[in-house]
C-alpha cells in the first residue's frame, strides 16, 4: 500500500485516471454563480399559498384547546392546522418514536410548533399566526439535565417507556436512552497506572446555522398524492418522518429536493415538513413555508450540550492504560438523533489511541428545551475536547512532549479501533508528521519563545488528533446508459452543498472512462431514486460511491457482452477506452462506441443497459468476545478516517481574548476524488469549529432561548479567519472504498476546540473545561491562576 501526501490542489493525478483525483469544478457552478440555482425559498407554484407557524410560549404545558376564530376571520387565510388534526398514535423518530408531527396534547419547549396557517401572502399568514390563541395549562418545566434525573422532576414524556424503539434504549422516566461499553479490565487497571488525571468538562449548544433557513413546499395532485420539496439531507428520511407522523402510506407521498443551502445535520430529520403537508392537504393548494432566522434557531435543533466526566491513567513512560468516560447529554424535548450521538461519542471517546482498559457509559435525558440532534462531528468534538486536554495534562506531568506522548499511544496501521473493529487504512502518522513540520511547532518550541510576540500577549501551540467514521446504513445506485451512449446516474443522495453530485459523477465517469460531461446526475426523488439513508455520517463518498462504482461495473460488463458479439471476440479480450468505446485489448482501432452498443441494446438485442447496486454497511463495530455493550444504537457503523490538527493562538492578557493565528489540519481521507472540494471541507470544518471553540453558544433565559438572532449568536466572519489556515490531504488508500476513498465531511471539526484549548494552556497554563472559551472565561482563568500563584 503506497501513501502519497500533498496539499489539496498540487497533487499529480495518476496517468490512467481522467475523472477522479482532479479538482474539477462543482457541476452546479454556473447556476450557483449566476444566482439562478433554486433553493426551497426560490420555488413558486401556481396558486401557491404561504405558510407561517405558531410557536409555543411555554417550556412545558398541556394544550387545553385552540381558539382560531380571529385568525380564520382574517381575509386571505385559507387553512389552519393544529394538534387536533394529528392522531396521537402517529409519532416519528429515528431511534425512539416519541415525536408528533408538531405539538399534540402538550408543548415541550418554548418555540415548538403548535399550529400552522396558510394564507395568500406571507404577511397575512404571519399576522394570522399571531391571532391563533392556544389555551395552556402550564406545567413545571425540566430545564437542567441533572435535574431531569431527580425523582421529583416533572415527566417530559409521561409514556416514554411505551414508545416504539429501534434498539434497546433503556428508556425510563426522563432517561431517553443509556449506553455502556467495556473492554479490558477497566475497574482493576487503575492500580497499574503511575499517573491518573481526572476532570469534568462542559460543552454548549451550538447552532448549525446554515445560511439557508429550513422550509418546505407541498402540493397535492389531482389523484390526492402529495409532492413535497424541502430543505433536507435525505428525501427518504423526510418521507419516513412525514408518513410516520401523519399516518400516511408512503405511496401517498413523493419527496424531492431543490438545491440545499447547507445542512451540517440540521436538515437530516424533520422540521416543518409534516406541518406543511398537512396544510396543503387541508387547503387543497400548494403551500410554501420558510422559517425566519429566529424561528429556525428556536424550533429546529442544535448540537448537544455535554457534561463529561473523564479519567485517564498512564504509566511513567507515557503508555496509556485505562480510561473511564461518563457522559450526560441534554437531549431536549424529543429523542431525534440523540441515542446515536451518545453511542457514537462513547465509541470515539478514546480518540485514535490504544487504551486497553475502557469503561465508557452515559445517558441522554429529556428536558424542556429544543431537540438536540445531529451536528457535524456527532458528539466527537465534545469528547475530544476532554480527551485531548487530558493527554496534554499527562504529558505535562510526565514532562513529555505532547506529540511524543501521542505518537507513543496512537493507533498504528493494523491496530483495531476501541471495540476491536479492524482498521484497514490508517494515515494518522503521516498526518501528525505534516502538521508538526508545517506549523513549525517543534522548532519554535525548541527556541522557547514565539516570533513576533508582543507585550501583554502570549502565544501558544496546541495539538489534537482525531478520527471519524465514513459509513452507516444503506445506499444504492442506478446507472442507465442512454440511447446516445451517455449516462444517467441516480443515487438518491442529496447534495447539501458539499459537492457529492460532483464527486459521485466523477466516480461514475471514471468507472466507465467517460468525460464527466457525459454523465448526468438525477435529482433525488423518492419515486425514482434507489433508497439512500442520507447525507450524514460522512457517508456519501464512501457508502454511495461504492454503489456507484459497482453499478457502473455492471454497465461495463453488459457493454462488453454486447461488444463481444459485435466484434466477435471473447469478453475477457475487451477493455474500455477513454471517451466511450469498448475495444479489443491492444487493438484500439477494433472498437465499438457506447452509442452503437446502446442503440443495439435499445432496438435490437438485450434491452436498455442498466446497472444497479444496493448494499448496507455490514462491518461489526464491537467484537463480542472482547467487549461488552449495553444499548448499542449502531451495531455496524463505518470505517475510520484520521486527522491531526495544530493551532497557534495569541491571548490578550488584559482582555482574555483569544485570536487564532494559524491552523494546520491534515486529514487522511483514503483518496481525494476531488482534492479542491476535500480541502474545502477541511477548511470549512475548521472555521465552524473555531466558532464552537470561541464564540458560539445558545443561551437560555429560563425556558426561552435568549439569543436566537445573528446579532446575538456570533459565527466567525472573514475577519476572524486566522492569517494561516492550511489543509493537507493524506491518502492511505482504503481497500474497501471507491478508488481508495474514505469521507472527510466531519473529520476536520472534531479536534478544533481541543487544539485551541491546548494552545491556550500552552500559552498561559490555564486549562479551560468549559466551552466556548470566551474572553471572560479565559480572563477568569488567568486571574485565578495569578491569585493561586500569589499564595
Amino acid at each position, binding site marked *: 500500500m503506497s501513501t502519497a501526501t500533498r496539499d489539496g490542489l498540487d497533487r499529480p493525478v495518476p496517468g490512467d485516471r481522467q475523472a477522479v483525483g482532479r479538482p474539477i469544478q462543482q457541476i452546479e457552478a454556473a447556476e450557483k*454563480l449566476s444566482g439562478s440555482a433554486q433553493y426551497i425559498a426560490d420555488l413558486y407554484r401556481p396558486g401557491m399559498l404561504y405558510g407561517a407557524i405558531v410557536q409555543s410560549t411555554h417550556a412545558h404545558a398541556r394544550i387545553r384547546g385552540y381558539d382560531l376564530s380571529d385568525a380564520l376571520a382574517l381575509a386571505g387565510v385559507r387553512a389552519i392546522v393544529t394538534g387536533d388534526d394529528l392522531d396521537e398514535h402517529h409519532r416519528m423518530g429515528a431511534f425512539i418514536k416519541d415525536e408528533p408531527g408538531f405539538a399534540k396534547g402538550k408543548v415541550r419547549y418554548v418555540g415548538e410548533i403548535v399550529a400552522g396557517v396558510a394564507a395568500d401572502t406571507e404577511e397575512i399568514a404571519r399576522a394570522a399566526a399571531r391571532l391563533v390563541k392556544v389555551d395552556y395549562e402550564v406545567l413545571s418545566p425540566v430545564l437542567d439535565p441533572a435535574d431531569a434525573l431527580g425523582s421529583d422532576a416533572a415527566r417530559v414524556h409521561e409514556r416514554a417507556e411505551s414508545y416504539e424503539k429501534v434498539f434497546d434504549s433503556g428508556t425510563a422516566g426522563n432517561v431517553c436512552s443509556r449506553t455502556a461499553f467495556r473492554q479490558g479490565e477497566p475497574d482493576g487497571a487503575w492500580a497499574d497506572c503511575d499517573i491518573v488525571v481526572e476532570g469534568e468538562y462542559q460543552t454548549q449548544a451550538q447552532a448549525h446555522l446554515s*445560511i439557508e433557513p429550513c422550509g418546505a413546499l407541498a402540493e397535492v395532485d389531482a389523484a390526492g398524492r402529495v409532492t413535497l420539496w424541502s430543505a433536507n439531507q435525505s428525501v427518504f428520511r423526510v418521507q419516513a418522518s412525514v408518513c410516520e407522523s401523519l399516518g400516511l402510506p408512503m405511496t401517498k407521498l413523493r419527496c424531492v429536493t431543490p438545491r440545499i443551502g447547507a445542512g451540517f445535520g440540521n436538515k437530516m430529520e424533520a422540521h416543518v415538513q409534516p406541518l406543511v403537508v398537512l396544510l396543503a392537504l387541508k387547503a387543497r393548494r400548494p403551500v410554501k413555508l420558510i422559517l425566519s432566522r429566529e424561528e429556525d434557531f428556536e424550533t429546529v435543533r442544535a448540537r448537544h450540550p455535554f457534561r463529561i466526566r473523564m479519567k485517564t491513567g498512564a504509566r511513567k513512560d507515557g503508555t496509556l492504560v485505562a480510561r473511564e468516560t461518563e457522559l450526560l447529554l441534554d437531549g431536549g424535548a424529543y429523542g431525534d438523533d440523540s441515542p446515536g450521538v451518545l453511542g457514537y461519542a462513547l465509541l470515539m471517546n478514546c480518540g485514535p489511541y490504544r487504551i486497553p482498559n475502557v469503561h465508557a457509559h452515559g445517558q441522554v435525558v429529556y428536558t424542556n428545551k429544543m431537540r438536540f440532534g445531529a451536528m457535524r462531528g456527532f458528539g466527537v468534538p465534545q469528547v475530544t475536547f476532554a480527551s485531548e486536554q487530558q493527554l496534554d495534562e499527562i504529558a505535562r506531568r510526565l514532562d513529555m512532549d505532547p506529540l511524543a506522548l501521542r505518537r507513543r499511544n496512537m493507533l498504528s496501521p493494523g491496530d483495531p479501533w476501541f471495540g476491536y473493529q479492524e482498521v484497514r487504512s490508517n494515515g494518522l502518522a503521516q498526518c501528525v508528521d505534516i502538521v508538526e513540520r508545517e506549523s513549525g511547532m517543534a522548532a519554535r518550541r525548541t527556541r522557547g519563545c514565539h516570533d513576533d510576540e508582543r507585550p501583554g500577549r502570549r502565544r501558544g501551540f496546541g495539538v489534537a488528533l482525531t478520527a471519524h467514521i465514513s459509513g452507516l446504513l444503506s445506499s444504492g445506485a442506478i446507472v442507465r446508459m442512454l440511447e446516445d451512449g451517455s449516462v444517467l446516474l441516480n443515487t438518491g443522495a442529496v447534495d447539501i452543498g458539499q459537492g457529492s453530485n460532483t464527486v459521485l459523477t466523477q466516480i461514475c465517469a471514471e468507472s466507465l472512462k467517460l468525460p464527466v460531461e457525459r454523465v448526468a446526475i438525477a435529482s433525488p426523488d423518492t419515486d425514482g431514486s434507489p433508497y439512500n439513508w442520507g447525507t450524514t455520517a460522512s457517508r456519501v463518498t464512501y457508502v454511495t460511491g461504492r454503489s456507484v462504482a459497482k453499478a457502473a461495473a455492471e454497465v461495463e460488463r453488459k457493454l462488453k457482452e454486447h461488444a463481444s458479439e459485435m466484434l466477435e471476440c471473447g469478453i475477457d479480450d475487451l477493455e474500455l477506452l477513454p471517451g466511450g468505446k469498448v475495444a479489443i485489448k491492444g487493438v484500439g482501432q477494433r472498437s465499438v462506441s457506447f452509442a452503437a452498443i446502446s442503440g443495439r441494446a435499445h432496438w435490437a438485442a438485450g434491452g436498455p443497459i442498466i446497472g444497479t447496486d444496493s448494499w448496507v454497511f455490514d462491518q461489526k463495530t464491537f467484537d463480542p468476545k472482547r467487549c461488552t455493550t449495553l444499548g448499542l444504537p449502531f451495531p455496524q457503523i463505518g470505517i475510520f478516517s484520521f486527522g491531526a490538527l495544530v493551532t497557534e493562538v495569541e491571548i490578550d492578557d488584559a482582555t482574555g481574548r483569544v485570536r487564532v493565528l494559524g491552523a494546520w489540519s491534515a486529514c487522511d481521507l483514503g483518496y481525494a476524488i476531488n482534492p479542491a472540494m476535500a480541502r474545502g471541507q477541511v477548511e470549512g470544518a475548521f472555521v465552524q469549529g473555531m466558532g464552537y471553540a470561541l464564540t458560539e453558544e445558545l443561551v437560555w433565559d429560563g425556558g426561552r432561548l435568549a439569543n436566537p438572532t445573528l446579532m446575538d449568536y456570533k459565527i466567525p466572519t472573514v475577519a476572524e479567519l486566522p492569517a494561516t489556515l492550511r489543509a493537507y490531504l493524506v491518502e492511505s488508500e482504503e481497500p474497501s472504498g471507491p478508488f481508495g476513498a474514505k469521507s472527510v465531511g466531519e473529520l476536520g471539526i472534531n479536534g478544533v476546540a481541543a487544539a485551541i484549548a491546548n494552545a491556550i494552556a500552552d500559552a498561559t497554563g490555564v486549562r479551560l473545561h468549559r466551552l466556548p472559551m470566551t474572553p471572560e472565561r479565559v480572563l477568569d482563568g488567568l486571574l485565578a491562576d495569578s491569585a493561586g500563584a500569589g499564595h
Partner: protein
Amino acid sequence: MNLPSSTAEATILTLRINGEQVQVRAGLRDTLLTVLRDQLQLTAAKRGCNQGVCGACTIEIDGRPARACLTLARACEGADVRTLEGMSDSPAMKALQDAFASHQAFQCGFCTPGMLVSARSLLEGNPAPDEAAIRVAMSGNLCRCTGYVSIIAAVDAAASTLGDHGASS
C-alpha cells in the same frame, strides 16, 4: 377584518431594477427583498436573516452595496437597483464568477450571490486590493461552508485577471 397594515396600504410603485422600469405593489413595510423575490421572482438575493447581518441579500442601490432586507421598497423610487441577475455584463462580475468557480469559493452557494455583489463593489472601487482590504470588504457576508480561504483567494485572483486585462488594453 384587520388586514396587516402594509397590505391594506399597498400602492403601486415604479422601480428601476436592472436597468428596466417595473411596476410593483408594495405596502409601507414591504422590503425591497420581498418585492424582488415574491413579485419579480428575482431570487438571487437570499433571505438568510432578514436583519442585515448575514449579507446574503446584498444588492446594489445607486452603485453602492446595500442590504435588500433592510431597505424599504418605497425608499427605492427613483433609485437604480441592481441585483446579481443584472450584472452579467459586468467585466468585474464575470472575472469574479470565473474565479469563484475555479477556486471552488462556494459550496452550498446560498451566500454566494451576496458575496459576489460585495466583491464586485470592492473591485469597482479598488482594482488591486491587498488581502487586508479583501477581508474588510467581505467581512459583512457570512459563509458557513467554505471557511472563507477560497473566497479570499478567488477575489484576489479576479482582481489580478482584471488588472492583467487592464494593463494589456
